[in-house]
């Protein structure tokens, strides 16, 4: 589904990714771990198409097609979803209005009519139940005055509504208490299928107790330096990152 080859990227002439390779197939869950400043969020933003990063080399392919020249909204239309580490506030725009606009814009890009209000309502009801979201929450301004947990839950709610092919969860566990973590992880697990894939970016093993990865990658200094199965995450949790740094020397 996603194939990244020798990706090099920089911001303001500062090199952040230094030849990164990653392949994600449908039905898989990948975890990307690594110390602060390793380039984890940069990778997420580059896949989503954030324009302030300059891709200096390499290719990003989705379903066999190069997407590196596509605008962020076009990548979204192709099924890429990023759950933001710090979701922004949009005052006066309700959660419902926002998700409705997002769905209909995506449909428009595919030449489809707006989703009928009845179907939209049904879907909102279904997905908000899945994530244990209160109806009142949906009428609030997007992320305005939301707690950290509400923001993250709202991200996963949007993911549930948009049904992406590839979901990237950037530090979705930060700011969540244990109950919220369980609800969010549970939601992600229920949305998982053999047709879609998930990339989980995290500092800690904690989230991976709930969303069990098929592969764990360690990102260090702009490259994936070690890959393994779920047990690698446990090892990292126990030993920290220093041993990997030493291995590299």
């Amino acid at each position, binding site marked *: 589904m996603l194939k990244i080859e020798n990706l090099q990227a920089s911001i303001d002439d500062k090199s952040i990714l230094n030849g990164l390779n990653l392949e994600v197939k449908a039905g898989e869950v990948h975890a990307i771990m690594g110390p602060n400043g390793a380039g984890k969020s940069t990778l997420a933003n580059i896949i989503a198409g954030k324009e302030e990063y*300059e891709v200096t080399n390499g290719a990003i392919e989705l379903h066999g097609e190069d997407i590196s020249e596509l605008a962020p909204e076009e990548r979204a239309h192709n099924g890429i979803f990023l759950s*933001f580490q710090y979701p922004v506030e*949009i*005052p*006066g725009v309700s959660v419902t209005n*926002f*998700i409705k*606009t997002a769905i209909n*814009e*995506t449909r428009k890009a595919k030449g489809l009519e707006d989703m009928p209000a009845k179907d939209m309502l049904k879907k909102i009801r279904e997905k908000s139940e899945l994530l244990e979201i209160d109806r009142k929450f949906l009428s609030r301004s997007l992320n305005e005055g939301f707690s950290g947990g509400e923001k993250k839950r709202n991200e996963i709610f949007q993911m549930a509504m948009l049904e992406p092919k590839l979901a990237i969860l950037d530090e979705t566990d930060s700011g969540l208490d244990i109950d919220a973590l369980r609800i969010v992880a549970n939601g992600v697990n229920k949305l998982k299928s053999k047709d879609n894939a998930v990339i989980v970016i995290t500092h800690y093993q904690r989230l991976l107790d709930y969303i069990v990865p098929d592969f764990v990658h360690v990102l260090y200094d702009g490259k994936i330096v070690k890959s393994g199965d779920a047990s690698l995450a446990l090892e990292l949790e126990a030993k920290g990152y220093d041993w990997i740094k030493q291995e590299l020397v």
Partner: protein
Amino acid sequence: MKYTEDDLEKELETQEYKYGFYTDIESETFAKGLNEEVVIAISKKKNEPQWMTDWRLEAFRVWEKMEEPEWANVRYEKPKFQDIAYYSAPKEKPKLNSLDEVDPELLDTFKRLGISLDEQKKLANVAVDIVMDSVSVATTFKKTLGEKGIIFMPISEAIQEHPALVKKYLGSVVPTTDNFYAALNSAVFSDGSFCYIPKGVRCPMELSTYFRINEGGTGQFERTLVVADKGSFVSYLEGCTAPSRDENQLHAAVVELIALDDAEIKYSTVQNWYPGNKEGKGGVYNFVTKRGICENNAKISWTQVETGSAVTWKYPSCILKGNNSVGEFYSIAVTNNHQQADTGTKMIHLGKNTKSTIISKGISAGHSQNSYRGLVQINSRAENARNFSQCDSLLMGNACGAHTFPYIEVKNKSAQIEHEATTSKIGEEQLFYCNQRGIDTEKAIALIVNGFSKEVLNKLPMEFAVEAQKLLEISLEGSVG
């Protein structure tokens, strides 16, 4: 690929005026220039009684001695008042009973504006009094309104048919001496609307007037007078759009509202005068005086969506004379390219337990300057007066400006005044977030702006809110890419 402030700016300035066309209707225009003879000629043309002519002349003499105000936060080349033709009317003023009799070209104009009369009559239950180049050419729904005793007609006709009412109230809220532009308007106003709601009557429909400037080089001086008698209610809509012009056009309207005891007037405006091109050339000068007076327990609400004009100078105000009277001002002012707006309100609290609310939303883009200027005045006898003001500014790009000039004068210790102000900016992070959800930048800006303006949009009557949202999008969206 990088989306910078400059790109954002570029995107915002590439929207040319949508309604830039010119309707070729034969019209009669006075020679340029202004003196007592011209004032008398205008009055004569309209077959006005002597008291009206005298009233105009008195205003003209006051105006001659006045100077154009310069305190507003706007810079522009002053109009050459002797270079303006002060009267223009479609040559033949037809008496019309139905739309079939309206000049097809005029109907076509309205269709291109997206305000088909037919549609409005059917769907919106709106009586429309079209003001085209100063003289009304069609008045609809007169009969329905007549049955309730409601008078809604061009003010020129009201002067003939209801002289006592007009004489009593004209200039009672905005005296001829009030300010430079009001004096000018009083001297030369060509037409406008008059509305009277009798005691205890609730006007069954929104009353609506569409203004347009059509003849090149013609100043437009509309006069509106709305009188809501005791215990009555009326919702009045005013919307304007003007064709594209290279030379500046002066618009100096006066609107007076009178809400007698227990009456309520809701006055909504969507203003979309030609704002000039993206270099700041051309565009309408909109120097308007709007004021209402509230007697006991009366209420006046001003709601405005200002998207057009090169220069706007406008302060819809409320004089809260009666006890327990209420004044409200809800405003969205959008400026783009080189537009300048200095707009706000005055809430003058005279009566006891008077209450006022001000919600102002300023949106600036391009190289525009957007100023809120508001006065809250609590007079010594206004016990327990309350005011709440909220002024929010939204900026797009780095070259525009937002300014807030609140004036608060309190002469009574029991007053409660609250003032809140915020300034925010549409950021790249917000746009990227929307983009990532599949919403392109153009749509994202519309979404963010609509969210920002929501509190005010919600105050507009339904059928107007849709048009207003459309105007916000037209004013701010550019072609992406």
